[in-house]
């Protein structure tokens, strides 16, 4: 790892101010992505601003039909949260499937979303549930937040503070994990909103990161059942192809994970 300067921020304002002082600063949350990348010398921030101990960045609130998860809340705490398990069990379940226990003890939702790995789990939930990403400056709807591989609507120095999820009528997540990394070879999140709309998002599948899956949405709108997807075909064009799976293989996985997600949602 190249040299860097470590700062522990005491508040959101302090973090933003410290970030501005460095020549090439980065926020540090759980460090489960940033530190491996720094160890490989693929990133060399002049300053890392630790946001994970800021009180206003940690915790889960449920009010009415909204679950708000603050950005530095760990995957483990989301998975274990009674409030999340009750309001959006699929979200708690998703968090419990990220990486391994040690990764879940440190990794956070804000770090995962800012990183926007094309195979990460949370982006699928954020897009399918139509969540809103809150930053120190503004509120960004999921549709406008994800901008392709490892890229988001965040500006330099803009910090995610929380994510607000509308509570759905039903939701489910199913993932086919890469057996080595545990990331999603393909993961599909299905949601039926309280107003009866159906939203489906797939991660790990597309060359441009997390995506909505229109054919599955249409089929489930007509009939919310795993069997409704039997006749659906997912086009393979634009899907990822690598040593782990071809584009055709992933296209089929989108359908099969979609069916499993509907079954999980009930």
């Amino acid at each position, binding site marked *: 790892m190249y040299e860097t*300067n*470590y700062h522990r921020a005491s508040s959101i304002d302090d973090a933003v101010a410290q970030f501005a002082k460095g020549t090439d600063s980065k926020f540090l949350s759980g460090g489960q992505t940033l530190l491996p990348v720094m160890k490989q010398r693929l990133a060399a921030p002049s300053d890392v601003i630790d946001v994970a101990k800021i009180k206003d960045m940690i915790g889960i609130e449920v009010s009415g039909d909204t679950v708000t998860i603050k950005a530095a809340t760990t995957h483990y705490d989301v998975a274990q949260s009674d409030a999340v398990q009750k309001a959006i069990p699929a979200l708690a379940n998703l968090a419990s499937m990220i990486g391994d226990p040690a990764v879940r003890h440190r990794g956070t939702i804000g770090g995962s979303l800012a990183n926007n790995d094309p195979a990460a789990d949370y982006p699928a939930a954020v897009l399918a549930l139509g969540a809103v990403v809150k930053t120190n400056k503004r509120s960004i709807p999921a549709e406008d937040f994800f901008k392709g591989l490892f890229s988001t609507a965040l500006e330099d120095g803009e910090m995610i503070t929380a994510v607000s999820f509308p509570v759905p009528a039903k939701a489910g997540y199913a993932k086919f994990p890469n057996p080595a*990394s545990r990331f999603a070879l393909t993961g599909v999140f299905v949601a039926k909103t309280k107003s009866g709309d159906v939203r489906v998002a797939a991660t790990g599948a597309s060359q441009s990161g997390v995506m909505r899956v229109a054919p599955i949405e249409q089929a489930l709108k007509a009939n919310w059942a795993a069997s409704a997807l039997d006749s659906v075909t997912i086009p393979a064009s634009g899907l990822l192809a690598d040593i782990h799976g071809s584009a055709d293989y992933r296209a089929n996985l989108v359908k099969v994970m979609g069916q499993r997600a509907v079954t999980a949602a009930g």
Partner: protein
Amino acid sequence: MSTVKLTVNGKAVSVDVEDRTLLVHLLRENLNLTGTHVGCDTSQCGACVVHVDGRAVKSCTMLAGQAAGSNVTTIEGLAKGDELHPMQAAFRDNHGLQCGYCTPGMIMSAVDIVHRHGGKLDEETVRHELEGNICRCTGYHNIVKAVLDAASRMKVAQAAE
């Protein structure tokens, strides 16, 4: 350079390190606690697992500065004098190790698993929760046996307290 103050195995320590220092290097190089191992550079093998404020974490994926003010337990902090921790004893009794390189991380992860699941632990859960710990020797079979054995010993010990 920064001064990092933390508690390691119950002892308050204060160490001057470069800001880029990883917790595992502070433990091994500044405190000579070489039981914690480094087995990879991709945060995947779990040889470096220690407990920070009661939770199992990969000490190769945490800056020393992030651990400032925290309570860290390493493999050296488990035994009570000459008396092995029940997890250590169970690994010995069940031949849960061969070369031993992965063992400190396995044991720290396993103790964390038992703490979180208590008496409800079964083989499937142990195998699933050890996903972040890689062993190149044993084939995992005896490791899983050891963890389940230790879980029942720890339950008995807890009931006796």
